[in-house]
Structure formats: structure tokens, C-alpha cells
């Protein structure tokens, strides 16, 4: 059994009450959350230090303008933590960044929630999401996947946060309109809530329901994975899939794992000399320019796929609609499995390619 904080208000309002308490009691230096701007359907991440401004906060709003893990990694050491409300995939990506010394867990009190998925960029840009919101919450409280969420989210079987100090129960929670249920998972959380005037009970997340949702999500994921055929078709398949890539590298720029200030594939390392291009031209009769379209994808896969947490931002930004996220997750999961690695699960677990084992891949190439 876990300790649960209950606030008699809707899940979102209850959470805001708690955030306000933390800010007013000066336990945190700020609140990191989604807020609604003045524009319709426009939600941004914000760092709030003025308690009054929490009235605009929508900490549970189903949208990722930017993967928050990326933003949190910009904070260098803080004297007093910031409380951050982020989605499970964002939290997992932050853990991956912390492992790469790109972030500091001490900086934050991390609140996450059982996530029902996020809206697409296109629905947001077309100003559809505000009108869909109440139907979204109905679906979430009934443990259903809302029709308009990203397909990446429909295929996400990691909707229960890992490493959250506090988990807000949303998915399948019938009472999200009337009660905010917050699981206190860490000592940090238990210290922070001291003095917050509310009930603390013993409870736990509904395991059978979680399994049911997991099963459905995993099935959908397998379906998406099966639509990607590149494993059977070799280089031709890769060229078919990535041939329309315009080389904008937006996928890497929004990827929370790709933290390099300058991507290797944008560095001078990959500038072919004219003489090399000429010899390639002589050999093949024609050369695609800019070069290295497929190499970039394979390279990025080898750099980060085992850490891919499946947030789907890459698919959202791809200007030519390549299902980047499905491909990267499909391959990433396979690679991670070989190393017995689960990205974003344990901050102490080392990233596979950064450790050396004398006995590794002894059978490689044999199958």
C-alpha cells in the first residue's frame, strides 16, 4: 500500500491547490507546468513564481509543445527545487538526460500522472483541442483511448510514471471531476506535503485495470510495428521509407535524447570532399544531394534508439510525414532488449553503450 493524498476538487484543480501551497510556503522556487496562453488552443510550458498566475495553469493538459525533459535539462543546480508537472514519457526522457549528465534530479520535485495520451500538433494548430477537451477527460476517466490522441500515445504502454515523486491518478479514475488522488512515492514528496491540510490515505493503483490498458496499448503498438516493413526489405526498404526525407533534422532537434549542441551529422565530419563525391559520381552515375539521407537515420538510430522513450515528437514535426517515432521505437525496443535495458526506468542503470563488458555479443553474426 502507498500513501495517497486526497484533495476534494477535480484532479487538475486539486493539483493546482497543492502547487499553490508549495509556492506560497516557499518550499519550491517555482512551478513548472503547462499554462494556457490568451490564444485559443495554445498551451506552453511555463516557470511560474507568482502563486496568483497558477490560475492559468493546466498541469494535466494533454499536449507536449516541447518534450519537457528537454527544458528541465536546461536548469543548472538550483538552491531550492522547482516542482515540475510532466508526462511519464517526458519524465523518462529526463532520466535518460540525467544519465548523460544533462540534468540534475535534485533540482526538481517531479509530479507525473497516469497519462491518457496527448493531442497532435495538427489538431492544436487547427484549434480543435479546446472543444475536444471534455470528451478527452471522459474517455480518460473511463480508461479509454480518446480517438484524437497521437497514435504514438495509443501505442504507449508506459503510461504509469516511473521515478515520479508524486503520481496523480487519472487514467481510469472515475472521480477525476471530484477528487484529486496523489500517490506519494518518495521521501521528498512526503516531506514536501507536510502541513498541506488534507486527508492522507493508504491505497494503490488498480493493477487489473492497468494490465487491461497495457494489453490494449501493446496490441496497438504491435500493429503499428508490423506496418513498418524495413526489417524485411534491407536498404531498398530504408530508401522507400526515408527517400522523401528532406534532411531538415527536425526529428533530432525535438528529440529529448538528442541533446548534442551540434549533431554529428551536421558537423564537418560528414561533409564529403568534392573529389570523393566525384568518384562516387563516376561509380554510380548519379549522386543524390544533399548526401547521406539514409545514413543520418541509421546513425541517429545507433546513437539514441536504445534510449528512445517513444514520446512521438519526431513524428509530429516531420514535414514529410515519415512515421519516425514508430520506426525508432520499433528498433529501439529491440536494441534495448538485447542489452536488457529499459530507458528512463532507473537513473542508476548505465546506458548500454557507455559501459564495457568483456563478454558481450559473443554470438553476434551467427544467426
Amino acid at each position, binding site marked *: 500500500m502507498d500513501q495517497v493524498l486526497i484533495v476534494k476538487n477535480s484532479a487538475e484543480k486539486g493539483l493546482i491547490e497543492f502547487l499553490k501551497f508549495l509556492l506560497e510556503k516557499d518550499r519550491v522556487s517555482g512551478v513548472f507546468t503547462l499554462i494556457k496562453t490568451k490564444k485559443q488552443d495554445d498551451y506552453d510550458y*511555463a516557470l511560474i513564481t507568482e502563486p496568483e498566475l497558477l490560475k492559468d495553469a493546466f498541469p494535466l493538459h494533454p499536449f507536449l509543445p516541447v518534450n519537457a525533459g528537454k527544458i528541465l535539462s536546461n536548469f543548472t543546480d538550483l538552491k531550492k527545487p522547482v516542482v515540475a508537472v510532466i508526462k511519464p514519457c517526458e519524465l523518462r526522457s529526463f532520466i535518460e538526460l540525467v544519465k548523460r549528465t544533462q540534468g540534475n534530479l535534485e533540482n526538481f520535485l517531479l509530479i507525473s500522472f497516469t497519462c491518457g495520451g496527448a493531442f497532435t500538433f495538427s489538431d492544436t494548430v487547427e484549434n480543435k483541442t479546446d472543444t475536444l477537451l471534455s470528451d478527452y477527460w471522459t474517455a480518460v476517466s473511463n480508461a479509454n483511448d480518446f480517438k484524437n490522441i497521437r497514435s504514438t500515445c495509443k501505442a504507449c504502454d508506459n503510461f504509469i510514471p516511473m521515478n515520479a515523486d508524486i503520481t496523480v491518478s487519472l487514467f481510469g479514475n472515475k472521480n477525476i471531476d471530484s477528487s484529486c488522488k496523489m500517490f506519494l512515492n518518495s521521501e521528498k514528496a512526503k516531506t514536501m506535503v507536510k502541513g498541506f491540510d488534507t486527508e492522507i490515505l493508504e491505497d494503490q493503483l488498480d493493477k487489473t485495470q492497468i494490465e487491461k490498458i497495457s494489453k490494449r496499448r501493446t496490441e496497438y503498438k504491435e500493429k503499428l510495428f508490423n506496418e513498418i516493413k524495413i526489417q524485411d526489405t534491407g536498404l531498398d526498404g530504408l530508401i*522507400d521509407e526515408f*527517400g522523401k526525407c528532406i534532411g531538415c533534422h527536425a526529428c533530432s532537434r525535438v528529440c529529448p535524447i538528442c541533446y548534442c549542441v551540434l549533431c554529428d551529422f551536421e558537423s564537418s565530419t560528414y561533409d564529403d570532399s568534392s573529389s570523393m563525391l566525384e568518384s562516387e559520381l563516376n561509380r554510380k552515375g548519379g549522386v543524390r544531394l544533399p548526401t547521406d539521407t539514409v545514413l543520418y537515420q541509421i546513425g541517429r538510430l545507433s546513437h539514441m534508439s536504445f534510449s528512445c522513450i517513444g514520446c512521438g515528437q519526431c513524428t509530429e514535426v516531420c*514535414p514529410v510525414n515519415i512515421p519516425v517515432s514508430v520506426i525508432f521505437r520499433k528498433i529501439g525496443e529491440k536494441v534495448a532488449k538485447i542489452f536488457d535495458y529499459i530507458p528512463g526506468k532507473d537513473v542508476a542503470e548505465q546506458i548500454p553503450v557507455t559501459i564495457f563488458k568483456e563478454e558481450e555479443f559473443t554470438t553476434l553474426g551467427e544467426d
Partner: protein
Amino acid sequence: MKKSQIKGAKISLNKNLKETIVSILKKMFQNDCCDAILMPMQVPAKDSYAWVLIKDKKLIDDANPIAPVMPVQGAKALSNFSRKGESKLKILAVMKPCEIRAVVELSKLNQINLENITLISYDCPGALSIKNYREDPDKAEKKFTDMLKKPEFLDNYVKSVCKNCDNFSLLPVCDLHVGYYKSDKNNVFLIPNSKRGKQNLEKLNMKTPQDLSEWMQDIEEIRKKRVKNKQERFKQIKNMVEGFDSLRDTFTHCIGCHNCRSACPICYCRQCYFDSESAKTETDMMLLNAEKRGAITFPLDRIIFQVGRMSHMSLSCVSCGLCTDACPVSIPVADIFSYVAENTQKQFGYKSGNDKTEQIPLKTFQLQEVGGIKELVKDAEG
């Protein structure tokens, strides 16, 4: 060259425009006009186009000199070839006028060496947006072919910047130009526009007796209509970007991915200043700013990025529209930059991609410069 002096070779249409240009290119290949040709080719999955530098003559048949869509700016493809060391390869580059203008700007920025490059342009009906093309490539191909059959140059199906483009025909900087118009459905005109262009036609043994005043008149009529379109569009854009509040509203959905700049042919910096460590905000500063205003929103500096990028490249902007195509949140970046570019270029009496020898204003020093700035400030204040 004076307009009255513009003459060209008349070539009868062989099946369609694409085939006609392909046969001209093949002939140029055979007659030693070049070692290789850079032109668009459909990708194997037939759902987009890519730039291919072709040396094997057989591949020319697979290519399409007039592609309906411009996924990558031709200037970017060309600069990729010459980024590391010079090549002696003689290249023919068949591109849309805006791509050729970007090539010229990049050559001024030392990113392309034009010495061995022959630039071939054609009357451009405009390109479809990537989004339109990818939704149904077959339909888009058909639609585009129809557009070329009846060249009105005022089609609604093309990108917004293309509808407003008044640089869609013969440019002072191209070496050869392919002209055509609706009054003469059976012929195209190959127009030499430089010494190199003339030399090429001599190699082909082509004479250029054809008087082109009728074609030019036709193009001029269309240009006028397009300028009118542009002015209408700029009126709307003006309201979207004038004043900080409108600017903020216009870019409110911006996620700070900077994909506009990575698609931009002019933004050639390997690392954008705004992605560099120098542009990063210190955590103390973030908190300080938050405390000052009660809250700050992320991504930080999204307006600064836009305004900064404008100040860096708008003098060279060629309005190709790739930034809009690349924007994941559908901001009409190209219309905005095009509007600002027209004004900044006017201030310096400069036109991007219009003259190979003219220096980019910010690279030169003039004692008396931006004389009208006082009036501008007065206008803005009053």
C-alpha cells in the same frame, strides 16, 4: 541586356515541356556543354523528389527538370556539393528561379563557386506545398502537368509565396532560360542570357533569331497580376507582424524547433547562433526573469529567434517558401519573411539574387547608409 535585345531559339514542343527540356539537356550533354547535370528526380517510392547530380546519361530520362514540388532548395543541394573543396566538374543546374537566386546569394556568401556552373531556369508556374503533394502524389502530378499544358501562371493550387512571386521568369543572373506561354502551345524558347549561355548554344549549333517581345509582354502581364496578389497578401501579413503583440500572437504556436532555418537556403551556418551555447539563458537569469514577471514561458526567446533570423538573412531572402513547408505548426513563415525581406531590401536598394557582382549590403561599408532611417523611426513613432 536590354529587353529589346532578348532573342531566343525556337524549339518545337516534343510531347510536353518536361520531355522537351530533357531532350535539350541530353543534347547539351552530348555536345560537351557539361560533365554532369543537377536536376530533380522522383524518389524510388514516387512520393517526393530529390536532387540528383547525374553523370550517366541514361539517368536523365528518370529525372524531371520541372518538378511540381521543391522539398529541398536547389541552392542547398549545390552548396552541399562544393562545401569541402572546389570541383573542376562542369555542372548544369536546372532550377526554379528562386533557387537560382538563392544560388547567387550563396555564392556571395562564399558557399558556392559559380565558376563551373551553368544555371538554367524556366518560367515557373509555382510549386505545390509538400503537404499538398504528399497527400496524393499522383493527383498532384496530374494537376501540375495540366498547369503546364495551359500555362496561366496564376494557379491557386501552388504555395502562397508562389502565387505572389514576381520573379518567376527570366532573371538577370541565369545563363539559359526556357520560356513558354499560352499563346504558343507548340514551341518553347531557349534564351541565352550570358556569355556562358551563348557559348553553350553555339556548341549546340543553335541560332537565336526568334523575337520574344510577345512572350515578354505576356510574362509582364502575369507579373503585374502577381504583384497585385503580393500587395494584397502583404496587407494581411503587415497586420500579423507589426507591433510586439501581433508578433507574439503570430508565433504563439512556435515550438522553437528552428526547422524554418534548417530548410532555409540562405541560413547556411553550420550552427545557428540561436542554437549555440551563447544564446542559452542561464538558470539564474531564468528565475530572475520569472520572478520579475511572475512567470516565463518556454521555449525561451522564440520572438528573438524570429527577429534575429530576419536580421541575419532577410536581405538575401528569395521567398522560396521552404520555411513554411518545414514548419510543424503551420505558421506562414515564408509570407512573413517575404514581406519583411521586401522592405529591408528596399531600404538598402538591394534585390536578392539579382546581380552576381553586387555585394550583400551588410558585408559592405558605406559612410552614407540607411539615410531614411530617421523617417522610418518617425513613421513608427507617429
